[in-house]
């Protein structure tokens, strides 16, 4: 099982992962990545849903109006869940 990355592993991408800084407010981003809150999220990540544990049930409304529940994949399919946004 691959281990989760630690804090401030830069995102994969061009310019050594620094591509995203072209689009961000640098001061705000520097403050954010150095904040206790954000560091806390990265530090807590491995323990939030530990490897080998039961994945929490996730229920989402899809963009075409369906409801999807990850419990329905049980015994049927493996699944990959990624989170993301535009910005």
């Amino acid at each position, binding site marked *: *099982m*691959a281990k*989760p*990355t630690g804090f401030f*592993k830069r*995102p*994969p*991408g*061009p310019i050594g*992962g620094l*591509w*995203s800084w*072209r*689009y*961000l*407010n640098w001061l*705000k*981003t520097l403050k954010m990545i150095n904040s206790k809150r954000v560091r806390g*999220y*990265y530090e*807590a*990540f*491995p323990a*939030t*849903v*530990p*490897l*080998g*544990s*039961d*994945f*929490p049930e*996730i*229920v*989402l*409304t*899809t*963009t075409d109006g369906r409801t*999807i529940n*990850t*419990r329905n*994949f*049980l*015994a*049927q*399919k*493996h*699944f*990959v*869940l*990624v*989170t*993301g*946004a*535009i*910005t």
Partner: protein
Amino acid sequence: MHQLRDKYEDRDVEFLAMYVREPHAGERGFPQYRDHETFEHKMAVARELETLKEMDLTLGVDDMSQRQHAALGNLPNMAFVVDKGGKLVYSNTWQHAEDIDAALAKLVTADDPSHPAEPTITTRHLPGHI
């Protein structure tokens, strides 16, 4: 993700993307995107994401409480691989296609050892978004 989805489309693997809060709403490169005000607003931006990225994956929207996002770790670009037993076998704070490919290859090979899968996805870069 599309490459991975296409690679594993004939195996028992589902791909799901979860649209969460905008981590950089209103910043330099994104002045037109503000923090979500209602669920309908959030859903509209999710649909815009689908169009922008030409997404062909199932995209679900977390509710305004962001409780589920918080339960997973509250970070913007997380990745999880879960087996058929509902157990988490891989997670990361960023989406690395190679790692996800490796995790999936193990799972589907265990399902059917007569048809093993090997990690083959390589990316010179992978944007940190869906």
